[in-house]
């Protein structure tokens, strides 16, 4: 059956609500409208307004009340409508969602899954294309996941909702319409394990979310040039599967990290550090990064010049191979 990432996530939410009546979905326009991307389509009709509801337009309010609902015993799955509008909730996420279980010595559990459509490439207006993953991955107490395929959209969402830790679930919005052939329910590896999407011998390409597909396209193009890329989909950004990354670099001797987020202090910085800490003697070249630039996200007409793409990845491959 052909299924898009948006449909896969929708099915995961539906199945999670079916399986556990403590699962609640709420946020801006998620109820009647089914979300601006329709990811929560039909859930209110099936499960009623008590379990899938529209909230007032207040992101801090959405996350803060999710914390209280979780303290009561629910498993909230709040939505932040867009990446660029998570910032009003920053304090609730960083100071409370991430910290309260620890502050309470484990007596308070916050099984909250915060859904955030993120990333660019859809020609959106300002504030609708951001990649804020480093903020969350930097914050102890949060788990951060991002699916790169429809299959993972389903399986990782189910896993996130079932977890007792708070999860920031980043949905690559430009891949919402990406299709796969799959039968529901889908099981994949646990989210904490990175997955080698394509084996290769020359360069390891570490990517996640929206860039998984881009990296696979780059691997096709690279093959024409005679370079064999290994594409590793990280899936979980916190924790990071260091072992799989290191094993890949031990095979290839070269590494490139790809992400949409700006370069400085992005995930690439952490990944490069871990690789040089653990695979130093295997490296034939410095770890390179193909990322967005250190500027604010560009206006829509310029995003193609800003976002990492096949060409930027191939440039890095060439640089890496030249060592």
């Amino acid at each position, binding site marked *: 059956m052909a299924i898009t990432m948006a449909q896969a996530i929708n099915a995961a939410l539906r199945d999670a609500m079916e399986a556990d009546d403590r699962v*609640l979905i709420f946020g801006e326009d998620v109820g009647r409208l089914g979300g601006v991307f329709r990811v929560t389509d039909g859930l209110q009709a099936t499960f009623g307004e*008590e*379990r899938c509801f529209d*909230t*007032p337009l*207040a992101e*801090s*309010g959405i*996350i*803060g*009340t*999710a*914390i*209280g*609902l*979780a*303290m*009561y*015993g*629910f498993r*909230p799955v709040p939505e932040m409508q867009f990446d660029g509008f998570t910032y*009003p909730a920053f*304090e*609730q996420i960083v*100071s*409370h969602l991430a*910290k*309260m*279980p*620890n*502050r*309470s*010595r*484990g*007596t*308070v*559990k916050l099984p909250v899954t915060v859904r955030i459509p993120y990333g660019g490439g859809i020609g959106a207006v300002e504030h609708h294309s951001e990649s804020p993953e480093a903020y969350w991955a930097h914050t*102890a*107490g949060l*788990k951060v996941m991002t699916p790169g395929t429809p299959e993972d959209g389903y399986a990782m969402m189910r896993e996130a909702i079932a*977890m*007792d*830790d708070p999860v920031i679930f980043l949905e690559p919005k430009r891949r919402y319409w990406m299709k796969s052939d799959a039968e529901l329910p889908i099981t994949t590896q646990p989210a*904490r394990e990175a997955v080698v999407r394509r084996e290769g011998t020359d360069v390891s390409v570490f990517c996640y979310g929206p860039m998984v597909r881009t990296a696979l396209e780059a691997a096709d193009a690279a093959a024409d040039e005679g370079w064999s890329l290994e594409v590793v989909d990280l899936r979980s950004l916190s*924790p*990071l*599967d*260091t072992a799989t990354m290191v094993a890949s670099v031990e095979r290839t001797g070269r590494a490139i990290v790809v992400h949409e987020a700006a370069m400085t202090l992005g995930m690439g910085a952490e990944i490069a550090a*871990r690789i040089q800490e653990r695979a130093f003697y295997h490296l034939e070249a410095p770890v390179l990064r193909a990322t967005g630039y250190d500027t604010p996200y560009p206006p829509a007409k310029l995003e193609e010049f800003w976002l990492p793409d096949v060409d930027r990845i191939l440039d890095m491959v060439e640089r890496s191979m030249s060592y």
Partner: protein
Amino acid sequence: MADHAIDPRSLLPPDEPVHLLDPDGTLHEDDDHPLELDDEQLRELYRFMVVTRKVDREAINLQRQGQLGVYASCMGQEAAQVGSAYALAEDDWIFPSYRELGAALVRKVDAAGLLHLYRGTWLSDHDPYAHNFALMSIPIGTQALHATGLAMGAQRDGNAIAVITYFGDGGTSEGDPHEAMTFAGVMRSPVIFFVQNNQYAISVPLEKQTAAPTLAHKAVGYGMPGYRVDGNDVLATYAVTKRAVERARRGEGPAFIEAMTYRMEAHTTSDDPSRYRTQEELDEAAKTDPIARMRNLLTQRDLYDEELEQAIDEQAKETAAYVRAGIYDASHGDPLELFEHVYVDPTGHFEDQREQLRAELASSADGDGEEVA
């Protein structure tokens, strides 16, 4: 859903704060705010206030002796806290800020446990579920949202409890209480937003905090009644809170209470209030002391005698001694606990760092003979 046909005048606060007990102990009964308290309960309210003041003083002393890093006193606010917390049933919830020692004692929360936050032993040391008393919250006003979320949970569960959240006059300027009141108003959640207007946010006086006629007027904008009460009058505070709590439990939605009070101590032990308020102002405020007027009432009613005084004094000393014993020279626990509660299911790199600390502890233990933990 909010009732938009609501008459805004019905939500307005009274011209004067509700006040039942004069400083000389004269009680003005009020049919709108029936007390329905027996003699024992009157004594109990008094006792809670005296014990609170004693433990509060003990905490200040502990800070002066280097046992607490810092402490935020509730002296002067005992009636606001004790009166409101006393109006709750056992299954109601409290979401405090960092100054609610009085409310905690009414709830029988282990006060020594609470103070570990200020000692720095751990970030809290009480189980919120044991007394339905949430962790203290230092980021101003943020707890109002947790209270609202928990109330929304109770609504979904068909559990007719009320939830009270405390914040200060400064807190009314933060965004989170506004979002919380918006949510609670729309969803008719059983939340009492209880503001202790102690006149200052650290050094900033109320008139620099708001241009609203009173804080209670803000309630109208969220579609909930704004009550105002003399927060140094434990009986009025009790009665007004009780009315709000009963309404909330009946499903009639949230309420906002502004309790007029005064912070008699510094903002915290690190603060120097002489830079922003005068001795004359303090002397004036001392005349409205919440404890003295309750004692005057008990005396007038022949409910106060030497025996009671001694018994209360005894209990206050005992609680203070218990807190002192729990805090004094309390050692930090195992540093490895730093990693214990961060995740239910910790994995990856996180484990490596735990091992790194373990190794550091081991090498400092046998390396230079230093004791750890």
